[in-house]
């Protein structure tokens, strides 16, 4: 998948995971990995962007003698997931359209014939 597109998709997956409830880095990665491959270094800039854009807020909790940073989804984040789902209907139509166009084995020749 194209890298920019992948980032966009992961962002939505992270938000979707957070819709279940606040979560922390390691758990977000394990949850999102179920559907798309993701590493710590991919997640960091995504979380940062979500935080600066107000889609998520953070809080810290003590765990095992260290602090764990939790991410909580906020309204702009919820809206974003909503918008993604709304878009999917449109995308489905586009996919169907692309799939239904019949295969032409020699598209280049076809164009040449037309111009003759």
């Amino acid at each position, binding site marked *: 998948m194209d890298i920019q597109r992948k980032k966009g998709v992961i962002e939505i997956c992270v938000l979707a995971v957070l819709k279940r409830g606040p979560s922390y*880095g*390691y758990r977000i990665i394990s949850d999102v990995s179920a559907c798309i491959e993701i590493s710590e*270094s991919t997640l*960091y*800039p995504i979380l940062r962007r979500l935080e600066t854009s107000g889609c998520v807020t953070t809080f810290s909790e003590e765990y*095992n003698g260290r*602090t*764990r*940073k939790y991410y909580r989804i906020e309204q702009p984040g919820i809206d974003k997931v909503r918008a993604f789902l709304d878009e999917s209907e449109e995308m489905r139509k586009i996919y169907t359209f692309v799939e239904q166009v019949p295969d032409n084995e020699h598209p280049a020749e076809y164009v040449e014939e037309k111009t003759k």
Partner: protein
Amino acid sequence: MTKEHFLQELAARLHQLSAEEQEKVVAYYSEMISDRVENGNSEEAVIQDLGAPETIAQQICADHDKAAETMPPQTFSPEAGGERCYAAADSVQKIVVSAQNVHVNVRSVPSGSVRVLFDPLPNDKVTVTENGGVFTFTQTMQFHLFSWFGLFRSHYGITLEIPESFSGDVCVSTCNARLTAEHLRQLKSTEFVTDNARIVMSGLECETLRVRTSNGKVELENCSGTVCTVKTNNARITALNCSFSEGVDFHTENASISADRIISDTVTLKTTNASINSDLLKAGTITLKTNNASINATVAGDARSYAIHSRTSNGQNNLPADWTFPGQTKQLSAETNNAHISVTFIPET
């Protein structure tokens, strides 16, 4: 590589980010490593899997550049003559000034923006960037002609002006030339570095103050904040009237330390082959260490509340060698040899 080492390597490469952002990155990776280790992976394997700290830092910095309103670096190849002024945007959070063979003076101005004033010589190259709240001014000598000439252009210098409203981080470095700063208030993390030249700081108020030089003396006066570290060698450290809530750490070699009226939780004064003199120290933990030279100090407080450890040879020592008993909350350690130790306690005022 251990976790600690990995995080250090990572932090060392995040220079261009604000202190707050650096902390966030390190905290994030620290949490990730701990979580993965607790889930049954070995620390080494986890770190191997994360990849090189250099690469991670590079990606993060690149991402910051993209996200921020990016101003393309401006490079000036100045023509002769005339002082120039390079100003930063009002939103700047961190100032980084690096120079070579030019002295830098940092001063406070009542209002206005962060500005660098500089009258470049023909072989100076100046680069100014502003990314994600970090204003960077870099001056280099294009041909690296180290010139004796450089030593004589004492009038030639960089002035960094910081308005009173600024409350971010400041990093200033140069080499072979002195660094001075005065009357700066409400700064967060500050760092002043040079080589072969002296550093003079007066009236600084900042959370952390880091001062480093070599072969040049350091003078501090009326500085305050949370933590202060000073490091030099072959030249003395002089401090007067400084108060840092958590710690003061002075370190030199082959030169004396004189620290008068210093208040902190922890005070550490270390040198070699030269004396330590301190007229009035007020601290919970005091460490004084040298050799071949004397230690003279006045400490504010009751001698009985200090657990004392002291050592010297071939010299008089007015402190007990080892003196501890339950209930003592403070510590004093004084070590030297071939010289005397004289520490007196006066009542706290």
